[in-house]
């Protein structure tokens, strides 16, 4: 059964069919909300509110777009409204130079999986909210630029520019953290 058929099922009164959408997208939903809210409690509240909104407005969902894009757009709007923060800040102070990413094998072998996850989470936390969100949408969910533009309400070229900058900042912070970690290990 595809997603459009499931949507029709929910619209015909079978509310339990909506559980599929909760189950499938809740992890990504919480990740997006967390990037904007900055804490898990608020992120969970935003996700809950967004799912209820999605359920109530399911009749307005147009099947030509992806359900995930439509849902993430609701989550994005709810989170931004709730936190009342400007997530697209100009991170001038974080301008990264052309940093070369250490793509050698040692980086991947030396670091434990959990350690790496922790470091990535830490870096994303330090990044401007909007940049961290773009990286999340682009790399975690492999959303194309067009879909990201629909979710965030930015235009395609804006997404590309911001994504380029976010990638640079991520690289810079990663290299910095990686060097720190190596230094800590040596001492």
């Amino acid at each position, binding site marked *: 059964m595809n997603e459009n058929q499931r949507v029709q099922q929910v619209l015909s009164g079978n509310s339990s069919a909506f559980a599929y959408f*909760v189950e499938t997208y809740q992890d990504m939903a919480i990740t997006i909300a967390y990037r904007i809210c900055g804490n898990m409690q608020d992120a969970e509240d935003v996700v809950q509110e967004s799912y209820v909104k999605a359920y109530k407005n399911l009749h307005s969902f147009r099947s030509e777009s992806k359900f995930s894009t439509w849902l993430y757009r609701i989550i994005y709007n709810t989170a931004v409204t709730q936190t009342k923060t400007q997530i697209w800040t100009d991170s001038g102070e974080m301008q990264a130079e052309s940093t070369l990413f250490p793509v050698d094998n040692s980086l991947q072998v030396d670091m434990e999986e959990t350690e790496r996850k922790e470091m990535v989470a830490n870096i994303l936390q330090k990044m401007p909210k909007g940049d961290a969100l773009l990286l999340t949408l682009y790399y975690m969910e492999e959303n194309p630029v067009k879909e990201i533009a629909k979710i965030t309400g930015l235009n395609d070229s804006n997404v590309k520019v911001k994504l380029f900058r976010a*990638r640079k900042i991520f690289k810079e912070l990663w290299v910095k953290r990686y060097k720190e970690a190596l230094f800590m290990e040596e001492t």
Partner: protein
Amino acid sequence: MEEKKHTQNEEHLIRGMMQGAKLKASDNLKYRIMQQIETEQALTPSKISDRKESGNILKEFGSIFGTMYGVLAVMIAATYFLFGQEYLFSPQFLGTVILVASVFSLLWLISRLDSHLQRKKKIENK
């Protein structure tokens, strides 16, 4: 060429890192969401039925008392043409009007009582 390869490697590496950083929703989140949806859904039809209910009362009221006023109008017209204007103010005629009005009021009361009992029964069955 080499730069392109490096960029591809970077992309691959960042993707790998990011994939592992996806957060996990708490176990009870799905339950919380579904419970709220079920609750809101349960409340929505009752709002509709409440609206329906008040619509029914008005309809019933209109039809019973409409008929009553119709009957009274016919009675008044017939009395006026058959017995004249004076008879309309006689105690006999006024008594008949009150009787007709009481019968219709009783009828309306019975129908209200009946629908109330039926609704109560429906709630108990749920």
